[in-house]
């Protein structure tokens, strides 16, 4: 997969991993590349016992960990939740929702143009959904998916790293170090509840990087289990009980280190029991007691969404959540197979998530934003793929969403800029400002620089 995407893309993800200590003598890998928001934030591991989660907490500053524990237990739980899903690499919007009836389409895409899928789009007769995008089509038909077919910003930067950075920080400013959701939480969040900004990943999503309040990262709610090879059944149950018993004896031994090691074994045993609810199997063998079936797929994405629905349903104080969609969308070559695989798993997982939330009775509390750092060039390249473009596609999903067209599709005739890239009809800051005001009930001007200069669109029913 790596050889098929451009080197800049893999390098920027490497840099995100490597640049742990911002500016400590690290030479910029590419001069001018922005430092990712949240880089260098203090990170501590922490077990939120009240929530039953092993969290990596970021930016808690001088707050002691017991304070965070109390904060989570006390935090407000009824707030609306915004979930941000990132499709990494620059999704080809001209395939995801393709201009079937645009006369230029087959000229620009002689090899990649898709045949009529029959998956029509009500508000624009020119458009068709990609054959692997059946889930998006169904959600839109039900009025639960708003679609911005040409979203971006003027003079789009075609670097993955820079354009993604702009979207993450909510401004075309390479120097900003806080994410747009992080700044919102700094304003409206709590000083001691790291679950209010949750990254379902090994590391913090830059959009959640806050300056003042703690936020967190979690690999999965079901990651706390103790197995052993060739040990099962009753013996396994006895073994798990024995972990706690190992701690019991050591507490009386009088040696501080031995007592500590024993106490931790006992705590680990208690935590394992507390986390049992997140490992309950539902119908169809789903984890997290999900009432619906998620796609069976090796990637973490479907199960992360399933775990997220279970956490929301369990009343954990989540507020802004970020995770990465399945798929590699930087399709410079052999696009058809890679794109179809990504869209199918991502769409089906999102549909299952939406159905799950509704079945659990929490659908009205959750709105999901799906985005990518840019779209792709209208004209295909010589490798059965497409290069970096400008405007791309974004979705809003939820029962409270006004599931209509946002902005318009500008067409391939007059809608391309001088470089042959799609022009944006909706600025991403219009989307963010509208979300902040209408969904999160906050003043967008306090979060998005120059929010007043971008329009607003009604997003909710």
């Amino acid at each position, binding site marked *: 997969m790596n050889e098929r995407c451009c080197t800049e893309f893999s390098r920027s993800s490497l840099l995100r991993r*490597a*640049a*742990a*200590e911002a500016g*400590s*003598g*690290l*030479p910029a890998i590419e001069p001018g590349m922005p430092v990712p928001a949240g880089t260098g934030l203090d990170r501590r*591991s922490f*077990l939120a016992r009240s929530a039953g989660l*092993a969290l990596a907490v970021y930016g808690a500053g001088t707050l002691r960990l017991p304070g965070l524990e109390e904060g989570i237990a006390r935090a407000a739980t009824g707030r609306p939740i915004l979930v941000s899903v990132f499709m990494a690499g620059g999704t080809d919007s001209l395939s995801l929702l393709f201009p079937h009836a645009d006369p230029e389409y087959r000229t620009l895409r002689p090899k990649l143009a898709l045949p009529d899928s029959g998956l029509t789009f009500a508000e624009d007769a020119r458009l068709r959904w990609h054959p692997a995008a059946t889930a998006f089509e169904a959600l839109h038909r039900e009025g639960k998916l708003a679609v911005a077919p040409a979203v971006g910003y003027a003079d789009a930067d075609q670097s993955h790293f820079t354009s993604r950075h702009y979207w993450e920080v909510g401004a075309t400013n390479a120097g900003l170090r806080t994410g747009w959701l992080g700044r919102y939480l700094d304003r409206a969040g709590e000083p001691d509840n790291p679950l209010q900004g949750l990254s379902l990943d090994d590391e913090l999503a830059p959009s959640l990087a806050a300056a003042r309040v703690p936020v967190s990262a979690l690999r999965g709610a079901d990651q*706390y289990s*103790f*197995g*052993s*090879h*060739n*040990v*099962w*059944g*009753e*013996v*396994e149950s*006895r*073994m798990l*009980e*024995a*972990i706690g*018993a*190992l*701690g*019991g*004896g*050591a507490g*009386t*031994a009088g*040696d*501080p*280190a*031995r*007592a*500590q*090691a*024993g106490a*931790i*074994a006992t*705590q*680990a045993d208690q*935590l394992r029991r507390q986390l049992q609810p997140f490992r309950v199997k539902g119908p169809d063998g789903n984890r997290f007691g999900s009432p619906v079936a998620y796609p069976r797929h090796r990637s973490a994405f479907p199960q992360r969404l399933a775990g997220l629905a279970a956490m929301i349903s369990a009343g954990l104080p989540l507020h802004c959540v970020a995770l990465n969609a399945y798929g590699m969308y930087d399709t410079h070559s052999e696009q058809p197979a890679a794109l179809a695989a990504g869209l199918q798993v991502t769409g089906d997982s999102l549909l299952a998530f939406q159905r799950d939330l509704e079945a659990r009775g929490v659908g009205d509390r959750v709105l999901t934003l799906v985005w990518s750092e840019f779209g792709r060039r209208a004209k295909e390249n010589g490798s059965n793929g497409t290069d970096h473009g400008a405007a791309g596609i974004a979705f809003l999903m939820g029962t409270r969403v006004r599931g209509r067209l946002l902005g318009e599709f500008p067409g391939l005739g007059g809608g391309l800029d001088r470089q042959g890239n799609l022009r944006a009809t909706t600025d991403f800051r219009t989307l963010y400002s509208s979300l902040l005001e209408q969904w999160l009930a906050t003043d967008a001007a306090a979060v998005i620089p120059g929010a007043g200069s971008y329009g607003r669109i009604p997003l909710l029913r």
Partner: protein
Amino acid sequence: MAARRSPQPALPVFRGLFGPAEAERLLWRAGFGPRRGEAKRLAALGPRQAVLALTRPGREHFVGPAPHDEGGRPLAPYDAWGHDHVWWLDRMVRTSRPLVERMTLVWHDWFATSNDGVGSQKLMLNQNATLRRFWLGSFEKLLMSVTVDPAMLLWLNGNRNEKRAPNENYARELMELFTLGAKRGYSEADVREQARALTGFRNDYRRGVGPVEFRYETARHDERLKEVFGNVGRWTWRDACQLCVRHRLHPSFLVEKLWRSFVPTAPPPATRRALERLYVGSRFGTRPVVEAILRHPDLYEGPRMVKSPVVFTAGMLRAAGRGIDTTAWSWLNGLAGQQLFHPPSVAGWDDERWLDTASFLARWQTAGTLLKPAALDPKVAAPFDAPKLVERALGYWGRPTMSSSTQRALLGFAERSLADARATPWKRQQYPAMVENALRHLIAVSPDLQTA
């Protein structure tokens, strides 16, 4: 009336019974635990010779199979992610000179440099070779070598420290973390003056290669007078190091920090003063200090210490006689909180806080990864006898010293599991081997094996 006892000597040595349990503790504190039978062999030497065998070892040789990755390929420690970690772990597992590796780890924690800021496994391994070369040598020479080490120059911005734009990063840590301790005997003015003394290093960047050509350029060095700790002169980087090592508060800092690497309790004041005299008297040599610590009664009679994730893992591999055949130890140790060449900050790892519920799970997984290839097949018979199963599982780990409470917990587990099986023929056949597998795993995470 009994003869008057001589006063307690300033540097007492352990004169109690030096049996396998004491030798086992010495091997954990000054190395990575015993191989099978090693504790007994070391105990036979007596306490003095046992310490000297560690501090003055013979030529290095490696015991056990050569390391490779999961595909059977040789390790690529300069290039492949995680291979640097297992390359060093392999030395810890196979070396005949465990204290060399242990001291290298002490210095890595002391001069904590992270590849997160260096960005070159090769430069990190070069630094590692420097730390190993000075393992029990002169601290002053070690400090000077570290000061000009390319990885350190990158990590603490020594390469950007020039006379027109001094960078205080290294100067501050030189005193705060490496030689004197926070707020001990230096001022903010000393930080600024030391930074000027340390100016002059630089390097180039070559596209596709990274940092190259580390060098000292007198044109970038600030040649004017500096005042450091009240001494005025045209100090250079050498003087900056020497002024720290000769500072009156340096010996106590070094002795205390070195002591804490081996013993969890504070040194008695008389011992600390005697160790300081030993250190200064040997012109800042660390061998006599470490030898005295390793012979001190507090090491053998005092409380236990929690093993770090890397020490725990290397020790399990040594006990099980397994070499490096996977790079999984790199991420497993990372999950447990200790990825080599990636300390959390320039202050190193927090040795007081190795254990929490998250790192406990990581240690369980580490032990599971170690046990898996040799796990018993439940279809192969094992004795239907709880004490025998416990005995066999302890044998797997080379019969480490176990507390009676842990032994009771293990036996209770085995008895209950066999009772579950008593009435069902297939369970009677299959449960014993499963119980033995589980016992091996439980022993590995028991408070006895997590500490030494």
